[in-house]
């Protein structure tokens, strides 16, 4: 080997090293550019989703139909998903990136009355906080008095009632058969250990206690309209932080609601009437839906309901001997209510405090 040979080898090596280094830096530069682009696209997709959610929120508050197809915005596009009435979800896309954000929904009104709202009785007094929407008319008789924070009569039924979706696919919704399948769908949407499914044509007397802790749905299914009735008695040995919905194909009668638990809610969904009666002071947090009438009768001491009451027909307060107060709750939909289908979205609205980013 002479000096020329050594110089040649050294030159080759320097060129090789420089080539490898150059390639590495070019590759890194390309990779960083790609990362930066993806990051920028992802951020843009997020803000497109946020803009879409703001628009969807505005639409929901103002009874404007949500866009069915994706909407171009800011160089990207967003789409609104309202298939599940318990939430309003918006997916934003920009380039190859997508991000999704959502708000949980709550019912808009304290009282939603598909028929008439009546108050009868010599000493009856009702106070309703939040909004009351009545498709029929309000009347009071026998010296009864009432106070409403915000009451409107004659509003379209689409804003006061929930029709049962056509679960049996026979072309007609709102039938007893649809309600039976709705109850099953609601129960099946929760893990088996959170559901109590009872098939019975009699009257089931329920005493919310330790054995119902952690349950989301109790479904009492009768074989025909008027069967599968439920009486609920006080909630004295229940626990804090519970959220249970009792669904019945018959009537539900809540006797002496006695909820003192913190952050617990016991809701009711019935094909038949919902009735409430009490001899002592009563207080409960409930979302109540009845396909028929809601009757607050034989109330012998002042009581309060915090939640939302939706009656496809009438709500009546009869023979109430003292005050009955209704407070609005903007808590997200109670268990089972999201299975009532997209029709419920006319009565629900997204709540800003429930924002969360979800997987697109």
């Amino acid at each position, binding site marked *: 080997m002479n000096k020329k040979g050594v110089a040649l080898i050294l030159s080759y090596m320097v060129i090789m090293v420089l080539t490898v280094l150059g390639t590495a830096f070019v590759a890194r530069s390309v990779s960083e550019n790609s990362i930066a682009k993806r990051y920028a696209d992802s951020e843009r997709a997020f803000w497109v989703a946020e803009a879409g959610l703001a628009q969807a929120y505005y639409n929901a508050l103002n009874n404007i139909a949500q866009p069915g197809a994706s909407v171009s915005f800011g160089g990207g596009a967003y789409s609104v998903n309202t298939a599940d009435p318990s939430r309003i979800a918006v997916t934003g896309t920009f380039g190859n990136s997508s991000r999704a954000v959502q708000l949980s929904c709550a019912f808009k009104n304290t009282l939603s009355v598909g028929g008439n709202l009546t108050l009868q009785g010599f000493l009856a007094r009702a106070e309703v906080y939040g909004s009351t929407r009545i498709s029929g008319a309000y009347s009071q008789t026998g010296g009864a008095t009432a106070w409403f924070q915000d009451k409107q009569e004659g509003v379209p039924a689409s804003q006061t009632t929930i029709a049962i979706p056509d679960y049996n696919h026979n072309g007609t919704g709102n039938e007893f058969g649809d309600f039976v399948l709705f109850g099953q769908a609601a129960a099946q949407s929760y893990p088996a250990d959170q559901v109590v499914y009872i098939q019975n044509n009699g009257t089931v007397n329920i005493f919310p*206690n330790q054995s119902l802790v952690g349950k989301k749905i109790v479904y009492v299914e009768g074989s025909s309209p008027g069967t599968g009735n439920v009486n609920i*008695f006080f909630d004295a040995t229940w626990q804090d932080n519970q959220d249970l919905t009792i669904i019945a194909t018959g009537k539900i009668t809540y006797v002496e609601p006695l909820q003192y638990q913190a952050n617990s809610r016991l809701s009711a969904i019935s094909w038949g009437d919902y009735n409430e009666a009490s001899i002592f002071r009563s207080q409960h947090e409930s979302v109540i839906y009845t396909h028929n009438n809601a009757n607050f009768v034989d109330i012998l001491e002042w009581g309060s309901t915090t939640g939302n009451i939706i009656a496809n027909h009438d709500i009546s307060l009869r023979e109430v001997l003292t005050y009955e107060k209704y407070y609005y709750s903007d808590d997200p939909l109670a268990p089972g209510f999201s299975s009532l289908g997209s029709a419920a979205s006319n009565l629900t609205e997204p709540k800003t405090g429930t924002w969360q980013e979800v997987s697109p």
Partner: protein
Amino acid sequence: MARGISLRNMKNKIIIASGVIILSTLGVVLFSIYQSKQIERELGIARPEVRPAEQPEPGNKLVPARPEDYGMVVIDARASDLTQKDWDTLLSRKIAELKSKVTPEDKDKINGVIKEDPRKTEEKLKKIDAEIQKCEEKLKDDPANPEIREKRQRLMMLKSIGREFP
């Protein structure tokens, strides 16, 4: 001879230098790749935690439960309306169960909601009796009237609760 040693030394130096240069280059390339991955990872961490959208579990099989397992009491559909004695028996048993299970703290909370002057409760029970009497009168003329029968049942439940609570 001296030249031969010098060339051999040179050759060794070249091999060592080449090794050092190649390892350094490899190190730089690996470090570069590592940093790219690090940036990507950090960008991922910087984003808010994304929670998967809650999806209902696909159709759990519904298995009918026994109401008794949950402390429920079923009244058969074919049975006639319960009498006051029936309600007294059922609700006094349930209220006794309840009283034995609640803690003193919970008892205080319950009393905070329903406790009242016993004379007031007596008055209410009298009103309920009068209402039940009215129902009985109406049912003499119209025994099948579902609304009146229902009301009588409700009043009977309230009467039993009024006697047992608080």
